[in-house]
């Protein structure tokens, strides 16, 4: 199957993948970087919200500045 894939896809498309689309590969790398940044920011904000809501058991309102600034949660 790999041989037929190479013969039918890679051989005719080789000049495109290696020369013509070089800038598009770079663009895909840029897009992957943007996706990684967005995902990690989302994960970090969800983890932070989870820590804040889990740790405060006294019913106090969470200060709004905690959502806006980057804080590293400290485990006591």
């Amino acid at each position: 199957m790999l041989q037929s894939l190479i013969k039918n896809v890679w051989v005719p498309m080789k000049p495109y993948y290696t020369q013509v689309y070089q800038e598009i590969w770079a663009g895909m790398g840029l897009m992957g970087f943007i996706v990684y940044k967005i995902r990690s920011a989302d994960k970090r904000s969800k983890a932070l919200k989870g820590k804040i809501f889990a740790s405060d058991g006294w019913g106090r309102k969470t200060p709004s500045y905690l959502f806006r600034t980057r804080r590293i949660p400290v485990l006591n």
Partner: protein
Amino acid sequence: MNENLFASFTTPTMTGLPIVILIIMFPSILFPSSNRLINNRLISIQQWLVQLTSKQMMTIHNNKGQTWTLMLMSLILFIGSTNLLGLLPHSFTPTTQLSMNLGMAIPLWAGTVFMGFRHKTKAALAHFLPQGTPIFLIPMLVIIETISLFIQPMALAVRLTANITAGHLLIHLIGGATLALMDISPSTALITFIILILLTILEFAVAMIQAYVFTLLVSLYLHDNT
């Protein structure tokens, strides 16, 4: 009603497995490739359409730009067929997802920009300042041109997403209104049904036009940079 309205835009899963990849790959089945010189009617019509579109779109480019013909023709065929298939009832349209459209827009736009900076650096930088600008306006205009450059992929993606999503939502709403009005006032329901038919015709046109606009804009960015 609110949840029903947006339920058709959730990525489909079957027993927990995402089948969205299969749905994205499905339109390629409708475009069979053939090694014959004289093909059957379906392939002949498709090849004629592709030749017509590629001639119309790619004649403005030089040799370097014309190397992107395959990419741009695949793009317009993919977006056009995906949008048209999405007009079938109860189907999922991948191009309603912003993630999908950004995934198409960002690499292609970035590809054209990198190509411009790599092969024609001075001309690419010169695009940031239109000819004949008064001297005191130069700093502001460079900032504006930079912002407009970085907005291009966002505009490409959001334009396609918004047009297709809005069309589907309107069809859903007016269809629901037609159904609800059938018991209350059949004549009003008939008028609403005629509006629904006209809207569906419009959506067919929008599906094809949006595919053309997306590809044409990428082709224009490529022309600026080659």
